[in-house]
C-alpha cells in the first residue's frame, strides 16, 4: 500500500509536519495502514447478498407452492430455520465485509459479540419463561390473555358460519374503559380465576380439578372464589398452618381476626405498664 506513504511524504513536504502525527510522538506511524477494500470484493459481496435475498424469497415461494399445489405442509420450524439461517449469513457478510470487522481491530468484533450475547440472554430467558409457565401452572399454558383489545376470540361472529369475526375493537357501551373493564371482569389479571371459568364451563373437566391444582400451589388458605369449599373437601385444610418461631408460612389474604371486635381495656393496660416502673 504505497499510496499512504506517498501521501504522507507529500503532506510532510507541503505542510512541514505530519497531519497524522502532529506531535511527532509516533514516528513509526507509517507502519500502520487502514484497510482499503478491493472494489471487486465489494461487488462480489453485494452480488452474494442479493443472491441470498433471492434465495430466501424463493424458499418462501416454493414452500407456499408446495402447500397449494400438492398439499405438502412443511412444519413451521422449517420456514423459520430457513429464513433465519439465510438472514444470519447475510448479516455476517454485511458485518464482516461492509462494516469491515474482518479487517478491523478485534475489539470492535468483541463489542458486537458481547452485545449479541446480551440479546441472546434477553430473548432466551423470555422464551424460557413463556415456554415453561405451564410446568408451574397448567392454566398458564396456551393463550395467556385476551390481548390488548380487551375482547377475545369469543367476541360475536359477524356471519352465520363463524368464518368472520367482528373487528375486535373495544366497545365500552359508552362507559369509561376502566369502569367497563371492572364490570365485565376483563381487568382481572389473575389467570387462576380465568382458568376457573374455563374449568367450570368445560364439560370434560370439573371445578374440583381446578382447585386440586390451585391448592397444590397455594395451600395455605381457602380462596375466596372457592364457594363450595373444595379447600376442605379435597383435604387441603390440614395445610393451613400458622407461622411460628421455627418456620414461616407464606400467606396471602387477610390475617385472621384482624377486624374482629376485641374489647380493649385501655385503662388496665395503662396501669400494668405503669407497674413496670
Amino acid at each position, binding site marked *: *500500500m504505497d*499510496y*499512504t506513504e506517498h*501521501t504522507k511524504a507529500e*503532506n510532510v513536504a507541503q*505542510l512541514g509536519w505530519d*497531519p*497524522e*502525527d*502532529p*506531535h511527532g*510522538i*509516533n514516528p513509526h506511524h507509517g507502519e500502520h495502514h*487502514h484497510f*482499503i*477494500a*478491493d*472494489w471487486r*470484493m*465489494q*461487488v462480489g459481496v453485494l452480488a452474494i*447478498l*442479493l443472491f441470498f*435475498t433471492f434465495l430466501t*424469497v424463493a424458499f*418462501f*415461494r416454493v414452500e407456499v407452492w408446495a402447500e397449494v399445489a400438492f398439499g405438502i405442509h412443511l412444519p*413451521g420450524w422449517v*420456514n423459520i430455520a430457513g429464513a*433465519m439461517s439465510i*438472514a444470519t449469513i*447475510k*448479516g455476517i457478510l*454485511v*458485518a464482516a*465485509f*461492509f*462494516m*469491515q470487522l474482518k479487517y478491523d*481491530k478485534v475489539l470492535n468484533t468483541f*463489542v*458486537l459479540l*458481547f*452485545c*449479541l450475547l446480551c*440479546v441472546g440472554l434477553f*430473548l432466551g430467558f*423470555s422464551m424460557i419463561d*413463556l415456554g415453561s409457565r405451564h410446568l408451574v401452572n397448567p392454566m398458564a399454558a396456551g*393463550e395467556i390473555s385476551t*390481548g*390488548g*383489545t380487551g*375482547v377475545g*376470540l369469543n367476541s360475536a361472529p*359477524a356471519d352465520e358460519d363463524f368464518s368472520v*369475526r367482528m*373487528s*375486535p375493537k*373495544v366497545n365500552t357501551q359508552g362507559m369509561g374503559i376502566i369502569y367497563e373493564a371492572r364490570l365485565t371482569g376483563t381487568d382481572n389479571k389473575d389467570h387462576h380465576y380465568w382458568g376457573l371459568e374455563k374449568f367450570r364451563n368445560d364439560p370434560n373437566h370439573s371445578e374440583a380439578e381446578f382447585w386440586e391444582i390451585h391448592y397444590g400451589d397455594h395451600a395455605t388458605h381457602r380462596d375466596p372464589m372457592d364457594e363450595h369449599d373444595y379447600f376442605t373437601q379435597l383435604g387441603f385444610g390440614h395445610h393451613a398452618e400458622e407461622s411460628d418461631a421455627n418456620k414461616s408460612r407464606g400467606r396471602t389474604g387477610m390475617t385472621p381476626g384482624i377486624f374482629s371486635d376485641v374489647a380493649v381495656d385501655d385503662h388496665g393496660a395503662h396501669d400494668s405498664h405503669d407497674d413496670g416502673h
Partner: protein
Amino acid sequence: MSTMTDTNPTDVPQSILKSPKHWRNRIAGHHWRSGDEEFDAAKLGMWLFLTTEVLLFAGIFCGYAVFRMMYPEAWANGSHYLDWRFGAANTAVLLLSSWTAANAVRCAQLDKQFWLRVNIIVTIACAALFIFIKLKFEYMVKLGQGKAPGTFFSYPHAHDAHEPLWWSLYYIGTGIHALHVVIGAALFGVVLYYAKRYQAYGPTQYTLVENAALYWHLVDLVWIFLFPLLYLIH
C-alpha cells in the same frame, strides 16, 4: 489491496487548498497522540453506540418472538397480509445503498472526491426510495384498509382477535427502522456537504464517512432480519 483504477487522487482547487477543513489540513485533537488513535477511539465509540441500537431493536425482536409464541394464528395471518415483493424490493434497495456506503469509505480512503460524492448521493437516493416504497405501497394502503395498530384497528375481515397487536408491532418495528433510515440519510447529507464544500474527507481523515457508513450498515443489518420475520415467516 489498491488497484490501477484506484490511483487517481483528486487535485485540490486553490480556493480550498488552505482551508482548515480540507482533509490534508485537518489535524488530530491535541489530546490524541496521533490521528490513528483518534480514529480508532471514534470508531470504538461508534461501535458502542451501535450496540445500544442493536439492543433497541432487540426489544422489538423479543416482542415479536413473545407475541408470535402467544398468538401464532394472528402472526401467521399478519405475514400473509404483507406483500413479499415490496419487502424484497426494499431489501435490494438497502443492500445496494450499503454497498455504495462501503464504496464511499473506500473513495475517501483513496481521495477520489468525485466518486465519494456520487456514492453518497446514490446512498441518499436509495434511502428516499426505501421510504417512498414503504409509505406509498405499504403504510398508506394498509392504513386505508383499516389495518392500523392497536385500538385504531378497524379492518372488518380480521380472522384473529390479536391482529391489532401484530399491526402494532409491524408499525413500531418498521417505523423505528424507517426513522433510522431518515437519520442515516441526514448524516450522509452532512458528509456530502463537507465533502463538496471543503473536500473534508481523504486518506488521513475520513472518520465521519466511516461512522456514517457503519450506522448505515446497521440499518441494513436490522432490515435483513426484519424482512424475513415480517414478510416470509408464517
